[in-house]
């Protein structure tokens, strides 16, 4: 199953023009735990998915209280670069939709 089969929200936004932050939320604890414990969401997986160096993945946080996962990474191209086409970074989450969980 893919991440989109588990999550209720998979969104992206800028956290400054230099950082993309991805938020994943779940509607029930079981689905959240399955994804959290699957170890499918790792810095290596994110680096591969977004074709960025591993050290540019700034962190992955699993927050049990709100059934949320946050992933932040340095943008390969900052949002104000002329070659970037997503100023707010709001359309960067779709590669995650298809991530294989199990």
């Amino acid at each position, binding site marked *: 199953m893919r991440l989109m089969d588990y999550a209720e929200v998979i969104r992206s936004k800028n956290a400054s023009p230099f950082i993309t932050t991805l938020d994943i939320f779940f509607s029930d604890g079981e689905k959240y735990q399955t994804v959290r414990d699957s170890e499918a969401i790792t810095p290596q997986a994110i680096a591969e998915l977004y074709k*960025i160096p591993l050290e540019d993945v700034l962190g992955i946080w699993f927050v049990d209280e709100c059934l949320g996962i946050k992933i932040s990474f340095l943008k390969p191209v900052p949002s104000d670069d002329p070659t970037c086409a997503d100023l707010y970074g709001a359309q960067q989450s779709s590669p995650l939709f298809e991530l294989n969980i199990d």
Partner: protein
Amino acid sequence: MAKSELKIYSATSFLGHGVDERSLQEAARLGLDGIIAQGTTTDAGPYYLGVGKPVMAEEALRRDLELIITTAKRNGVPFIVSAGGCGADATTRLSLDLVKDICVQHEMDLTVGVIWSDVSHDYLIQGIRDGVQAERIVPHGRLEPILTEDNVRQATRIVAQVGPEVVMQLWEENPGLDGIICGRALDVGLYAALPLLHGFDKGLAMHFGKIMEDGALAATPGSGNDGLLGIISGGSFCVLPTNPARRCTPESVTGHAFYERSNPNQEVNPGGALDVSGASYEQVDERTVKVTGGRWVEAERYTVKLEGVRQVGYRSICIAGVRDPRVIANLDLILDDTRVLVEGFFAHLGREKYALNFKVYGRNAVLGNCEPSPAIDGHEICVLLDVVAEAQKLADSVCSFASSTLAHHGFPGRLSTAGNIAIPFSPGRAVPVGPVFEFSIWHAWPLEDPGEPFRTSVERFSWRGVEPHALDGLR
């Protein structure tokens, strides 16, 4: 006199996104100690700071200011807002013009404390010469690791984020103020200033600010144009929306703490960081969440965030639709040839004078190199020709030449020989977009006195002093 409980209303997620009048009046009926709204951001990119213009439409900014200021004044409640988007002094001046209008329209006298956030080049250059080391906030290659004199000189405009200390000082030193208007401000600081003035714990006050700063976005259903009431007392605070159609839940409140933040547990602020890893969120009634456990971790030194932009050129664009399957099938060849022809035509200028960039919608324009499926599988695509050049005229020339070349370039198997692209409007071959900027300063500037880089003033607006005919025109 320090109060043991404060009721503070966060009027909207952003000044200009809309203030819900009924929610605001309902909050005012409960007896408030402050109405707060943030209205500055870098989300909309570097352009606004470059040209010194507000991000939101003037009409929207005026309406929100009007609701907040008139409600605050009528109820004898202080207001604290940041306004104008980029926070440049030019936008603060615009906000004050709007306030003047509002005072006349409502026959209201008003005394406003103003914090101007433009930071002068001379101040920064002198500081750097005196040995100030301002480190970049994000380790991005575009940013100098330590702010340099050249960085400062090349910047079109630089602002610093006003921290809560500056708001508090202005408020304390001017007892007659109805409210405060800031340029670029630390969002959280606007909401934390009153709790800090009344002696609440800094971790609690900053956590309060973090939850309150976007109004009803911390409620469910969330909204960017509705408010949130916060009641801070003792070692905790409660949040609830005054609109009965919404409620706060631990999920809505903690989920909101994720929004546009790189780290959900820790947030770096001037002079320290807010650590919410040990915080707890408890549903105390149907619509209210009680929050405790935010902790302030003092930093070794106090810093303010500098934001500066430098101009990289001028932009011209062409939006080119393609429906012809033969053009779509040969797109890479046609775009490569177009680029070669453009570079040949402008060879005498040198490549560094302009940059031509094709964004192919329907293929990988949005995700660029990290698009997992970069094949065209639709029957219609859009090519955005994006040119940034040293001068507007050159950007227009390059874009115009590139779009006509793209339109008329031949390729094997071409059936539709009158033009390869559909241009949707006129002017269309080269639409001048104007100056282009990039963030070149994104650094933490160390300070002894948090107010040092900022100018403050007290502005008095009296509707009686206005000429009668001016009054007529505005009524």
